[in-house]
């Protein structure tokens, strides 16, 4: 048997890799095996990120085990992406997918990031209510600080400002 990689020298090393439940077998000559080993030392792409994610999403969307085909027919009304496609590629089709597949997206995000609530930057012009919520969060921290320092006048004005903003949210 000839080496799968160089097709010149006889294969003496038989390598079996299982990535995401997919078995791959390679028959290599010692030279190619050594080269591949050197290449993959520590940093070769052991698992393709999107494939890995796809498996995870598939599980959450359909309850299926990794690499069993998803059978959902739910489709994003905006871009036409189906849950099955997301589960296959690990990619959402458009911003609306996040809304349409919302229930299933949350646990995926939680699993990836350990959280599903954004606490960072909010766009200034289009941030809308999120901008106000962020301001309230910031003021609440300041309020706690003012109370702990017994700066009651400052605390009172912060409390009033928070109330005002909370009313805007409703």
């Amino acid at each position, binding site marked *: 048997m000839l080496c799968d990689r160089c097709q010149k020298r006889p294969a003496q090393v038989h390598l079996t890799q299982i990535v995401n439940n997919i078995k791959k077998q390679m028959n290599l000559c010692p030279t190619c095996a050594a080269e591949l080993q050197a290449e993959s030392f520590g940093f070769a792409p052991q698992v393709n990120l999107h494939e890995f994610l796809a498996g995870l999403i598939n599980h959450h969307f359909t309850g299926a085990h990794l690499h069993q085909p998803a059978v959902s027919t739910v489709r994003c009304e905006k871009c036409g992406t189906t849950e099955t496609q997301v589960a296959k590629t690990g990619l959402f089709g458009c911003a609306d997918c*996040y809304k349409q597949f919302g229930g299933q997206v949350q646990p995926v995000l939680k699993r990836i990031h350990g959280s599903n609530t*954004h606490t960072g*930057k909010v766009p200034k012009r289009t941030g809308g209510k999120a901008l106000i919520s962020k301001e309230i969060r910031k003021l609440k921290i300041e309020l706690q600080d003012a109370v702990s320092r017994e700066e009651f006048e400052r605390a009172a004005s912060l409390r009033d400002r928070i109330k005002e903003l909370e009313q805007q949210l409703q």
Partner: protein
Amino acid sequence: MSIKDTVSSSYSKWLDASGPESDIVISSRVRLARNLVDTPFPHLLGHENADKVIYAVQTAIGNEKIKADIGELELSRMTELTPTERQILVEKHLISPDLLEHPEKKAVVLRNDEVVSIMVNEEDHLRIQCLLPGLQLKECWDLANKVDDGLEHILDYAFSEQVGYLTACPTNVGTGLRASVMLHLPAMVMTQQINGVLTTLSKLGLTVRGLYGEGTQASGNLFQVSNQVTLGLTEEEIVDNLIMVTMQLVSQERAARLALYKEQQYQIEDRVWRAFGLLKYARTMTSNDAMGLLSDLRLGVDLGIVPNIPPGLIMELIIMTRPAFLNKLKGKEMNPYQRDIYRAELIRQRLNSF
């Protein structure tokens, strides 16, 4: 300087070894992933919609306020660049290899000093990047934030109150922020501390990659450390966390260098001088050999063993001797063997006066 000049010059500001902690931290980078509302994400974009996104970005960067805050930005469609020129932008870390696929739908925006770059229609509609030498993550974030504010003033971003900036891949959702540092860690590799360190980093929610990003090897003892989590933390928390970890790595690497040099002075000096000798006199040099030897030489420069060589020159040689750059300098496509000869020649020329 235009984008065409950028791909002709091996110099980049981030290479000039002038930043803080630059004996170990080569560069810092912050990237923000942003998408436009009401437009499918890039992998679903037809030509017409891809054009619309490029046009929207072109309009946004022409805005007077952005020009005043950030400076002049130039947009190039990928099709306006030759394949070699595109590859050079990858070798200079200004764009990712993914921007090379389907070039007819993609564009790049650059500021002439190469500190700010924006990839258009990569995995997300916009990937805003800021790249500075040394440990300057906060400065990168401040600048990227400014570019983002400027663009948001004109473009309607896809944003959700619950989960933040929406991205094609759920691993980027939230802040869309990926902060990274490129570190030169030869002593930790030599003393075999590196594997333990890498395991620890992954426990802290950080990822380690080779020089050219996802899936590449850590050749030349260069490692890229970046945050994994983008949701649930603020941008400042992500950046601060990476700065703290980087400072730890810097002090560990410095300690390892000193201990190594103290305990094995002759072995280290021998290794450095051998590297210098090979770089100065070899007649063929593979890309990998060059990376390893230049790493040894850089260590020698940082330890004061080889005086007078500017550390920035060594980094510049690493970039210059990548395959596409060599082709560009030579003005023709070469096979790997021809490149090995030309690489050795270039390195010899540059190190000749030292």
